[in-house]
């Protein structure tokens, strides 16, 4: 059931209890977890934090902890499957689910006792009404009751009675079949497309706000959670702008609370500011040139994998009057004269080159004289750290990625390498025509020998690559039909076990609503070909598959979708 008063029904309930926090491994969940942890620290609530990477992980974690805990809080996992059936909990376990995955499973919505959804009821849900899906089973008992009653009557009367009863029974069965068919249709429509709702960190931040325990750190984490949804393309632009407006109100409230003409704040305090900044990834921690080359938006618009594109880029830079030497330097060391009007200059020139949306509304933070970060910088750094394939990574300490400055800088370096790898892979895929049209969708397979292919065995990195590749393909192809197709991408996951990771994304368009139907499609295709697949990720559009089953899986998918 949906929780209406998050403070009374969630926070006041868990405040005196021990809670198990099960957190999915994506940035939004991490941010929501940090806000919730800060709240728990303030009120000295005992909790156990368990990061979970998939459904199996969730199951094992639950089994381990179900003896000791009655209350479970799930962040960014668990809303889109029938949780009670999957976990088989005892009757007194209560689950609080704060998840962005939609559609929310109908059992989770209509269960009144054990499942509480920390989701606003109007969050774009469209849940079918109760009567359409669930039906009391009393009518069955009536039928058989009538029949046995009819048995005690004398024979003649019974015959007539029976006929009436039989007719009614046939009528009821027909109605029931109709109802079931409608139910199947409604459920199919409801569960067909997978998409994302309001970010979990925003919901938990609003809880903190209602408790008036919110502070700037929590606000910053909420901003990062929201930006993560935008960077990984999980929500529509409209929703992003609306949520940014909400956050902007909170930011102004915090800024006005402390700043005063006479009593200005210490420079070491964290300050969050609203920025209408450039859509160039990590440009303040890199050189402007590198950033332009490796950002999706600019790279796809200029088509930087071709020689023509490179020339256009040089023209663009010359048009703005930026000398090449300056542009290739680290951003911090660029001339102050150039840096002052950089945003306006770039916006003007990019309008000429057809890039109307080079600026995006976002937030930046700075503390001390040296440290300035944009929200998207932190998202990229944290994602790179979470999914790092380097050997010296310690697995457990994820919460450190957001607050520790050293780790943040390390993350930014890793993110730069990741972006360069993505750019090069995209360039090679486009130039060697690795993307094939399979009819209802486009398909691309990364061979094992591709450089940096280990990076792309992780879901978030592969998603970024996929989106980038689709945008690049759409801008480079002349085939009008291909521009509207979704993309399925496969990359080797584990060479010894012989598995690949397969990912599907919806078609790329400015007005797309980011609804992804590949989750169900993958399930059905895997079933029909009995391929050995693992649907373990919380995002159902990402699965693991055995390499040998790849071709028959694809054929099944093609037939399914055409």
């Amino acid at each position, binding site marked *: 059931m949906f929780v209406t008063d998050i403070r009374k029904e969630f926070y006041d309930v868990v405040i005196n209890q021990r809670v198990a926090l099960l957190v999915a491994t994506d940035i939004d969940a991490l941010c929501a977890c940090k806000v919730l942890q800060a709240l728990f620290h*303030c009120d000295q609530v005992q909790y156990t934090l368990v990061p979970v990477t998939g459904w199996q992980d969730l199951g094992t974690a639950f089994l381990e902890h179900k003896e000791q805990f009655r209350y479970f809080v799930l962040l960014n996992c668990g809303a889109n499957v029938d949780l009670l059936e999957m976990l088989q909990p005892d009757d007194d376990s209560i689950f609080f689910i704060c998840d962005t995955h939609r559609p929310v499973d109908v059992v989770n919505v209509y269960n009144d006792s054990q499942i509480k959804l920390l989701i606003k009821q109007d969050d774009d849900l469209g849940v079918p009404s109760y009567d359409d899906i669930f039906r009391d089973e009393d009518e069955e008992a009536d039928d058989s009751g009538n029949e046995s009653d009819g048995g005690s009557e004398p024979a003649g009367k019974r015959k007539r009675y029976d006929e009436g009863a039989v007719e009614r029974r046939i009528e009821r069965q027909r109605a029931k079949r109709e109802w079931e068919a409608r139910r199947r249709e409604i459920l199919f429509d409801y569960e067909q497309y997978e998409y994302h709702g309001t970010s979990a960190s925003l919901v938990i931040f609003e809880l903190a706000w209602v408790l008036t325990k919110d502070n700037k750190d929590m606000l910053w984490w909420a901003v990062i959670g929201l930006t993560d949804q935008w960077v990984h393309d999980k929500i529509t632009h409209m929703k992003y702008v609306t949520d940014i407006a909400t956050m902007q109100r909170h930011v102004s409230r915090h800024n006005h609370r402390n700043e005063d003409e*006479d009593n200005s704040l*210490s420079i*070491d305090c964290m300050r969050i500011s609203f920025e209408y900044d450039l859509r160039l990834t990590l440009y303040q921690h890199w050189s402007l040139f590198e950033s332009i080359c490796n950002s999706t938006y600019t790279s796809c618009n200029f088509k930087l994998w071709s020689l023509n594109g490179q020339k256009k880029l040089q023209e663009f830079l010359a048009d703005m009057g930026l000398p090449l030497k300056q542009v290739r330097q680290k951003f911090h060391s660029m001339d102050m004269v150039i840096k002052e009007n950089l945003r306006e200059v770039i916006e003007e020139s990019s309008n000429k080159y057809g890039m109307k949306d080079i600026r995006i509304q976002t937030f930046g933070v700075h503390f001390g004289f040296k440290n300035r970060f944009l929200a998207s910088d932190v998202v990229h750094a944290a994602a790179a750290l979470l999914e790092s394939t380097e050997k010296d990574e310690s697995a457990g300490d994820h919460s450190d990625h957001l607050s520790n400055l050293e780790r943040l800088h390390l993350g930014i370096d890793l993110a730069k390498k990741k972006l360069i790898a993505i750019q090069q892979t995209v360039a090679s895929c486009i130039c060697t025509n690795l993307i094939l049209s399979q009819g209802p969708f486009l398909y691309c397979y990364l061979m094992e020998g591709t450089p940096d292919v280990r990076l792309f065995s992780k879901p978030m990195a592969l998603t970024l690559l996929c989106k980038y590749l689709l945008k690049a393909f759409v801008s480079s192809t002349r085939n009008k039909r291909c521009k509207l197709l979704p993309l399925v991408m496969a990359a080797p996951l584990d060479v010894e076990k012989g598995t690949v990771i397969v990912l599907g994304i919806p078609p790329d368009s400015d007005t797309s609503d980011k609804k992804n139907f590949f989750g169900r499609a993958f399930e059905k295709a895997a079933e029909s070909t009995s391929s050995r697949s693992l649907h373990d990720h919380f995002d159902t559009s990402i699965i693991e598959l055995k390499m040998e089953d790849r071709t028959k899986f694809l054929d099944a998918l093609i037939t399914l979708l055409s």
Partner: protein
Amino acid sequence: MDPTEVEFLAEKEIVKIIPNFSLDKIYLIGGDLGPFNPGLPVQVPVWLALNLKQRQKCRILPPQWMDVDKLEEVREMERKEDSFTPPPSPYYMELTKLLLNHASDNIPKADEIRTLVKDIWDTRIAKLRLSADSFISQQEAHAKLDNLTLMEINTTRSFLLGSLNCMFKLRSNMQPGTSTGKGPDY
């Protein structure tokens, strides 16, 4: 003594806070505290103030002496005098550090205060070094210094005592047999 021990002792000082919760009077071994009412200032020891601040349950008011003008005056006086002037508070250094690290958003002009306190500290430590130097060079038997805080004493204590012991050993070794050491050379 460890600097952390000195800081621990400093946490017993009283500071004013404005809580945002309500609680009846609490009876602790060290004394009674409270009652706490939201919006009304109450005096508590620094350790409790910091704990409450970290749990976002209060706002700390800066102590009377933690004001830019007052500290500037103290600094000027300190620079003029040769002897030690009375410090703003017997634990001014520790309190500055604790309050500015944890509650700098409640203290106006925190950066300037930090600089001023550091200036005062530097001046006093320089005077302490000069005084120790003259004590040794004139081979005095005892010295009296007023208005030193525990933190400043603690800074020189181990070194001064250790080196005095060393010098005593050196002097007594250089003149074996005589009870009064007269030689000025060391």
